């Protein structure tokens, strides 16, 4: 990695026991997204990531970390906490997908509705949201992003290096393939 005035590299390595991961640990490429569930650009990236995953299959490991910018997106923090509440019940990715597919419906009652839809016990789920049980985890993700040079959402890292280019499907796929070839 080249020197830069501050780290355009992932400072908190991907860890299978903490991170939300899709794809095999031994995949040639790891793509990390720092995202905000209410951010429209992240919403636009959501189907692109799905497509990239479909095309690369087992060669890609995808990791999602929270980067809610509540200043701009008043529901983003609670949505991130809802995803974490789902995560401890083994349903992170289902919740993640539901949130991105319903970006304009992220009020508390919506979040409870998604939990119900996923067959989760809504009462403790809602209590954890009310008490912000998962706020610390979300903040840990957020600060790891700040320290890695996340400057907006979504920000992507490919094998630990910030992807400073467009994330349209062709550009992103080409960057991932380059990383795969050199790994």
């Amino acid at each position: 990695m080249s020197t830069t005035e501050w780290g355009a590299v992932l400072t908190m390595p991907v860890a299978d026991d903490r991170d939300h991961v899709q794809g095999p640990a031994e995949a040639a490429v790891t793509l990390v997204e720092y995202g905000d569930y209410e951010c429209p650009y992240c919403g636009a990236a959501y189907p692109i990531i799905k497509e990239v995953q479909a095309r690369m299959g087992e060669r890609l490991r995808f990791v999602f970390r929270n980067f809610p910018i509540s200043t701009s997106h008043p529901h983003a923090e609670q949505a991130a906490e809802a995803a974490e509440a789902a995560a401890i019940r083994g349903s992170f990715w289902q919740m993640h997908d539901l949130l991105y597919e319903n970006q304009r419906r992220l009020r508390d009652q919506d979040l409870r509705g998604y939990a119900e839809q996923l067959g989760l016990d809504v009462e403790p789920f809602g209590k954890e949201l009310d008490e912000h049980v998962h706020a610390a985890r979300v903040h840990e993700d957020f600060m790891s992003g700040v320290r890695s040079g996340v400057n907006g959402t979504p920000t992507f890292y490919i094998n630990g290096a910030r992807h400073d280019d467009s994330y349209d499907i062709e550009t992103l796929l080409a960057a991932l393939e380059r990383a795969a070839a050199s790994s």
Partner: protein
Amino acid sequence: MNVRLPGRVVARDWAPVDGSQYSAHATSGERRPDLQQLESKLAAPKEVDFEMTNTTVDHRPAPLPPGTSAPEFGLQSTPDQTVSLAEFRGQPVILAFYPEDWSPVCSDQLALYQEVLPEFQKFNAELLAISVDGVWSHLAFAKDRNLHFPLLADFEPKGEVARAYQVYRATEGTSERALYVIDANGIVRWSYVSPVGVNPGAEGILRALESLGEEGGS
């Protein structure tokens, strides 16, 4: 190599904060001829690494270097309030010069700083954002974007403070996107000019604040 880019255009070190709007590579369709021309002048643009930020296509001015005494100022933050640098003697100050209220990158950058504000406050640091916009624009912008730190109006004489900090863009009539960290004694400890369309994030500020602590804040 020094390349002066027209208008808001793009060096290769741009982070496409919003996906594509400022990327040299359009997401689809034709690429802009001026950018193609620019790229053809640059060696192997696809292989460019982040070092270019500081070297190859750097047309940005040099800000006041560390060790400089930070120029004093008093600027309006609201129609009836003035903020001066001297008020914050005894604590670190972050100055965030940004080109204009309302522009997309500014909004992202300042929203991020609002979010990171508690981290800045752990260093007892005060964040002051400065642009050439007037106080009424600042007030509307801060309200619209939920910003709870002072936005200072470098409005009359226009850009005077930006000039004193060597970050005025005379052609555009705005300031650079520049960051300063000033220590408790009013000495510049870190300064950085970002490409004007790139959100520099908060990491450089946090590092600078950390190094103040390590050096005893003197």
